[in-house]
């Protein structure tokens, strides 16, 4: 969810993606055996991000509803379990796909800046790109540069053949406003002025409160998980 609302590419969450993919595969294999590993799903959800675990209670509720309607269900018991199981899988697959698509769109949109950021990344700092995304971004850049060069630039006067993509392609707008909900109380957040007439001021963020604020101000809080974008 954070990824969808953030104007820039957030840190790559490879481990979670891999974990979810593994879960999907596991669920797929158990569906064919007509079993429901309720316990496995619930425990795994605790390891995953909050978004994923919100699916778990829903799943669990279905199971308890069903136990009350045993007689009616008996005839279609196997069938129903499989259906519900499949439903969960579809939803998980959708959320995962949506997340990855969102990231890819941002990578393509801001490709020179994303690659530049990765190039100038310091040792020990975590990357915004997974290795596969990095490869994709490089290929995208090379592909586009080669195309522009062959179709137009090489036919132009010699002093105009180089185009600085970092300047031509727009940067992510970090000043755009975002909605957020506070998960951990924060004190003394410095809000910089937008216009010259304003001064900077300091605010406290109470747990559970919701705000509309410039992304730049709270960017580190999104990364640390102290706030959730909505």
């Amino acid at each position, binding site marked *: 969810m954070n990824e969808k609302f953030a104007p820039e590419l957030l840190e790559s969450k490879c481990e979670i*993606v*891999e974990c979810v*993919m*593994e879960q999907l*595969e596991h669920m797929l294999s158990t569906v064919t055996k007509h079993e429901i590993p309720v316990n496995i799903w619930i425990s795994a959800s605790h390891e995953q991000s909050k978004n994923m675990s919100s699916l778990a209670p829903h799943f669990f509720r*279905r199971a308890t*509803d069903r136990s009350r*309607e045993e007689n*009616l269900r008996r005839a*279609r018991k196997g069938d129903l379990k499989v*259906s*519900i199981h*499949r*439903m969960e899988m*579809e*939803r998980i*697959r*959708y959320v*995962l*796909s*949506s997340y*990855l*698509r969102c990231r*890819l769109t941002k990578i*393509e949109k801001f490709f020179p800046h994303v690659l530049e950021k990765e190039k100038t990344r310091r040792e020990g700092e975590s990357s915004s790109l997974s290795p*596969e*995304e990095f*490869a*994709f971004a490089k*290929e*995208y850049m090379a*592909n*586009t540069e080669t*195309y*522009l060069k*062959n*179709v*137009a*630039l090489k*036919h*132009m*006067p010699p002093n*105009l053949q180089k*185009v600085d993509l970092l300047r*031509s392609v727009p940067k992510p707008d970090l000043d755009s406003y975002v909605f957020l909900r506070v998960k951990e109380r924060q004190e003394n957040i410095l809000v910089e002025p937008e216009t010259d007439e304003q001064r900077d001021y300091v605010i406290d963020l109470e747990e559970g409160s919701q705000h509309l604020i410039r992304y730049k101000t709270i960017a580190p809080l999104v990364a640390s998980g102290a706030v959730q974008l909505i």
Partner: protein
Amino acid sequence: MFCEKAMELVRELHRAPEGQLPAFNEDGLRQVLEEMKALYEQNQSDVNEAKSGGRGDLIPTIKFRHCSLLRNRRCTVAYLYDRLLRIRALRWEYGSVLPNALRFHMSAEEMEWFNHYKKSLATYMRSLGGDEGLDITQDMKPPKSLYIEHFLPRWKCEQLIRQGILEHVLS
């Protein structure tokens, strides 16, 4: 006036609604490049004159031509890049194989770009965990129901409808 043709290219795309790809204007592009060549050559000779002949009064003209050259380049690159973005959208809309009508509107180089893009995307999707990876061009909308227009007897559906698993399609 200079840059007219380049502006026309940009206007052509501006007029085409989102998602549509008009035919590649090879002629237009060629004309812009020719104009750029002419402007550059005129500038070259003027620069030489200004340097050796001391013709300082030529400098504003040189500057003006240079601005035109930059404008031409900007319009051209914008035209080409915007088309690439539209073509990219086609992959997400139509899948790997494009309808013939659209293919005729693309230049050979655009086709090549598209093929490279497709391959890049496929490599990325394949790498997403597991053996076959995840096709993220599927599942564009959240799944609402498991079966599409399934006709079930009402008493069986009732529970499922109330639980939100199925939707009653009144058509």
